[in-house]
């Protein structure tokens, strides 16, 4: 078998596994950061969090906010929902990513399901999920031997990293470095991305036009989310 053989459907699953696993990891990080702000009395800090994710939701209280973002599967940005989305993709990729790698998602789901039963707005028990997700990426690097598969997973991961960083106003150099890394991975899989979109993003970034203005962010996010597809 050609070590690079991969179907379009699997490529799609790999890309979204990369995105959802990384989204879960980053949202755990951000939830902790905003929870920390709320400890110091900034009880409405979660509103900024929701606004950055383009969510128009009124959670009434920080406690409701945390519970929703941890356990509510109807909230697509909750840790429970994101892990399920990651799992839906990972389950059909076992032979590409290996059972060992899949295990880290399964263990994370078991952890959040167990916490959900308590329905406590306690984020201190989430560290095992963060650890599992980091281990999952380590396992991918160690065990995924298909160059295409690895590049697609990484493309999904980095697009998610850029997406979140743009939404949360990270400095330009962080975004630029990630974007260069993304292009390195995409070069391995020229079949999955739109060259014209890359050119437009190149232009936006190299022109040093990067700002936190909503119009600019929306344009960049829109382009970013249309790089990968079947072309």
């Amino acid at each position, binding site marked *: 078998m050609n070590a690079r053989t991969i179907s379009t459907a699997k490529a799609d699953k790999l890309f979204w596994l990369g995105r959802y696993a990384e989204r879960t990891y980053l949202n755990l990080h951000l939830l902790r950061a905003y929870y920390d702000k709320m400890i110091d009395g900034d009880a409405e800090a979660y509103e900024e969090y929701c606004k950055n994710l383009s969510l128009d939701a009124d959670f009434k209280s920080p406690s409701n906010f945390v519970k929703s973002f941890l356990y509510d599967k109807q909230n697509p940005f909750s840790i429970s929902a994101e892990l399920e989305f990651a799992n839906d993709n990972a389950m059909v990729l076992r032979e590409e990513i290996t*059972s060992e790698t899949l295990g880290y998602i399964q263990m994370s789901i078991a952890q959040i399901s167990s916490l959900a039963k308590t329905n406590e707005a306690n984020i201190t028990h989430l560290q095992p999920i963060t650890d599992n997700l980091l281990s999952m990426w380590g396992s991918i690097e160690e065990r995924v031997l298909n160059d295409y598969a690895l590049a697609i997973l990484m493309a999904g991961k980095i697009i998610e990293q850029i997406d979140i960083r743009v939404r949360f106003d990270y400095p330009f150099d962080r975004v630029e470095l990630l974007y260069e890394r993304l292009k390195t991975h995409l070069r391995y899989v020229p079949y999955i991305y739109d060259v014209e979109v890359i050119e437009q993003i190149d232009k936006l970034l190299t022109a040093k036009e990067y700002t936190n203005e909503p119009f600019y962010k929306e344009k960049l996010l829109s382009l970013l989310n249309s790089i990968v597809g079947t072309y």
Partner: protein
Amino acid sequence: METLIRHKDAVNTWMERFGVKFGIYKHGVFNEQLFPFDSVPRVISHDEWTVLEKGLIQRCNALNAFLLDIYNEKKIIKDGVVPSEFVYSSKGYFVECEGITPSKGIFAHIAGIDLVQAKDGTWYILEDNLRIPSGASYPMIARNITRKVSPETFVNNHVADNRNYSDLLKETMDYVNDGRGINVILTPGRYNSAFFEHSYLAEKSGAVLAFPGDLIVEDDMLFYKDISGEKMRVGAVYRRVSDEYMDPLTFEESSVLGVPNIMQIYAMGNVAIVNGIGNGVADDKGIYYFVPKMIKYYLGEEPILKNAPTYLPYFEEDKKYVLENLSKLVIKDVSEAGGYGVVFGRDLDAEHLKEMYDLVDKEPRRWIAQEVIDFKDLEIIENGEYVERKADLRAFVLTGKETKVWKSGLTRFSRNPNSFVVNSSQGGGFKDTWVMED
């Protein structure tokens, strides 16, 4: 073994970690659940296994000879050993397979043979599964886990290693592939009840897991479509899609699970399909009755393993016996599988017995009847206590260059103390099956 049993929870945690699940539809809703595992293994001695192994090889060789014969010369019908009605009225018989000789002449590459052991130690064959028998992956991964959790158990007990099932599968696929192209496992998809097995066997055998739409027939060859636009030729397909859905241009035209035109190139010998199409004619519950006769007919040997005592109401003498003894027999609908369509006469009240009587009387070909075998109970642990439950054994026989029996098997048990039904789809659990080396 005590340490293994003590670590039951650890084993189940590992099972959850590896996503060892099976899917089940209830009221139209798909749910995945863990397949309950019991740590107490079924143990088969070396000597007992030697007999079972010989008997299973013999049986599968005869079944393969039968399939090749039925779809070609039909000598067994012409010689009056198997009545033609049982062949041509079988739901598993496909006229579309007439004249086909698959790669290396093998139809049943992977057979799942269900056996039970009676209290006196005699093994009986309950049924042959030659279409898409599932279950080997569960004891395979269970062993992988139990060896991690309790290594000393395997230092102290010389158990044949069963983690080679995927190697046997690869060997079988490679043999019939004959170097034409890659091996693929064709799954109906994520929501198939045995999807875990499809993905796990692909991982362990190195085959590509193909989904509907990934395969295409062009220029009389089968290809796997790559994202780069390149097409990889496929030499062997281990399909986990039912016959009826394999080719919409030959069978069920609404099927989106199969591959258009695959039957045409299968008939040309340009791709191997594992298991062959049309195998259902040989694992039909009615044909089961004739397997001992097939062994004598094709191999000139006495059957090593026994069928459960079976009656065919199709034959007048048997019908008379069945109707007179309905209340003590088990009645099986030949068109059902998975533990469905099985009725124990002793469980029926007078009204239902009468209904059954009429059904058998009106449609004798639809039913077989068997004596209820008082099978040996196996110990399982429930709520920390040892209890006894009914159990069967599915042995896996793989036919490639040689016919080999995998030195293990899926032992399924009923979790209901009053039930003989062990199927996972009906709440059963499973055990590892130890075949002792000495």
